[in-house]
């Protein structure tokens, strides 16, 4: 195993270990999105009677939302953890080792991916237990796991950038509601073509989060919708690339050493 791989593994292990020791970081990303989904599925079940609604199970329709909502929790957790490392000086300790900048970022994100996959497995299990049929079959579930990992990685990179940039856990916490606004003005509760309020429909159409939700949703209720998959993967990878570049630059500034 190369030195860099060993370093990435050590940092990823630390990320997973410290998260596993914080129930407050594990339980909310699992419970809150599922609870919100249950509430929406109960209250909005009659939406399925609208002409053109793509499924007769609102639960199946709503199951896509926890995937993205959970990723937002990942962003906040990743950001808060990294900000704490900056505030406590732990990052100085890491700077004084032979750790490469990119290995630190990759290791931290690898830890987030592991947790992101755990979240996705939980959401899929809840869906299966609740009787949701995954139209894309076992292969689609495998794609969902991959997509969940990529979403966690890309949103985690966003959290990492904010943390390295600001070095403040409070700032990360304050940004969380802002990220949630993107979720709420998306197609989370209704297909875009059925949104009656024009400004909301336009906002949802411009909002990349809509396409991420629709990507997951297509695998659950449609089967293999290649356009939805391309848009979903495309937007999240774009977000990831931009965030990764920003996070790398911010980390380089933060880990100032000669």
């Amino acid at each position, binding site marked *: 195993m190369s*030195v860099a791989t*060993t*370093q990435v593994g*050590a940092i990823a*292990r*630390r990320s997973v*270990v*410290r998260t596993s*020791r*914080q129930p407050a970081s594990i339980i909310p990303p699992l419970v809150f999105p599922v609870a919100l989904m249950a509430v929406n599925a109960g209250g909005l079940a009659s939406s399925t009677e609208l002409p053109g609604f793509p499924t007769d199970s609102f639960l199946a329709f709503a199951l896509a939302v926890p995937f993205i909502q959970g990723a937002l929790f990942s962003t906040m957790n990743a950001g808060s953890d990294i900000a704490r*490392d900056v505030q*406590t*000086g*732990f990052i*100085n*300790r*890491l*700077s*004084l*080792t*032979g*750790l490469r900048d990119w290995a630190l970022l990759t290791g931290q994100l690898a830890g987030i991916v592991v947790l992101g996959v755990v979240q996705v497995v939980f959401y899929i299990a809840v869906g299966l237990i609740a009787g949701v049929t995954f139209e894309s079959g076992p292969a689609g579930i495998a794609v969902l796991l991959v997509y969940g990992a990529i979403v966690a990685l890309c949103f985690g990179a966003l959290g990492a950038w904010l943390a390295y940039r600001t070095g403040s856990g409070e700032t990360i916490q304050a940004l969380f509601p802002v990220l949630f606004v993107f979720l709420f003005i998306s197609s989370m509760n209704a297909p875009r073509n059925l949104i009656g309020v024009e400004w909301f429909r336009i906002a949802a159409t411009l909002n990349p989060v809509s396409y991420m939700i629709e990507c997951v949703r297509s695998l659950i209720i449609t089967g293999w919708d290649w356009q939805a998959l391309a848009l979903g993967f495309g937007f999240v990878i774009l977000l990831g690339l931009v965030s990764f570049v920003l996070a790398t630059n911010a980390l380089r500034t933060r880990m*100032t*050493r*000669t």
Partner: protein
Amino acid sequence: MTDANGIEVRGLVREYKKGPRAVDGIDLEVAPGEIYGFLGPNGAGKSTTVHVLTTLLPPTSGTALVGGFDVVKDGPRIRGLIGVALQEAALDPLLTARDHLRLQATLQSVPKEQRGSRAEELLHRVGLADDADRKVSGFSGGMKRRLDLALALVHTPRILFLDEPTTGLDPQSRTDIWNEVALMRREAGVTVFLTTQYLEEADVLADRVGIIDAGKIVAEGTPAELKAEIGRPSVHAIPRTDEDRPKITEFLARFGEPLASTRDVAVRLNEGLGLTDIVRAVDQNGVDIADLELHAPTLDDVFLAKTGRTLEGAAEESQEAQPRR
């Protein structure tokens, strides 16, 4: 000097944006295997110097060689041969002591088959073997400091930087750290650059001391040399009653130069005189004195002589000036 375990600094300056010169043109040399005490009040420039020497901060100007390598050009090489315990014991409260040591050993490229045994060895060495699997959040300040020291030693460094390693610790924990530092030098010949604001610490541990104030080194030498520079010891007599004070003052003036003191009557002894001369004279003249003490010069006296302030007073001034930074 090009020795692999030494430190050589020439005209080192570090300026902060919109701030004063934290380090203002210092020169110093630390010989291999030496414990160098860098003594000064808060805000004097000690930690900034450590940050520059450990490659965490680039100098504004001047040169610094650590283990023969330039801090500006050879950062990665220097980081491979030094161990560092910074002022704040930066530990992850959610990890155990053993987790920390394994992580540090991995990142410092300690061979995989040696990581476990090295962690065990260091846990025993710093007295944390029984607490190895407890989360650091439950550790006392002394335990955190000892773990910090163990982490700095994990890759068997040749040069060790300890930035105020005992600040805020109780006397027992302080003594434990001192013993460990002395042992490392004695057994492994590690060069130690130790910053401290405790005179006693510098006096007990350091082979040589550099006193820094306002970014400049104001004195340097062995503790004995520095105290000898100040010169003669002083004698302090405590009168039995306030009425005795003028008589004792007049009596002691025969033996040396009077020193200002509200608590007692003090003189800096003239050359060639000792406590025995005064005791003999007290007996012969029947002078009534409650107590008589001989004070050898301390590093605080050195600091006072060099800066016009006591170390304690300088620390208070520095704390008042902190918001300007």
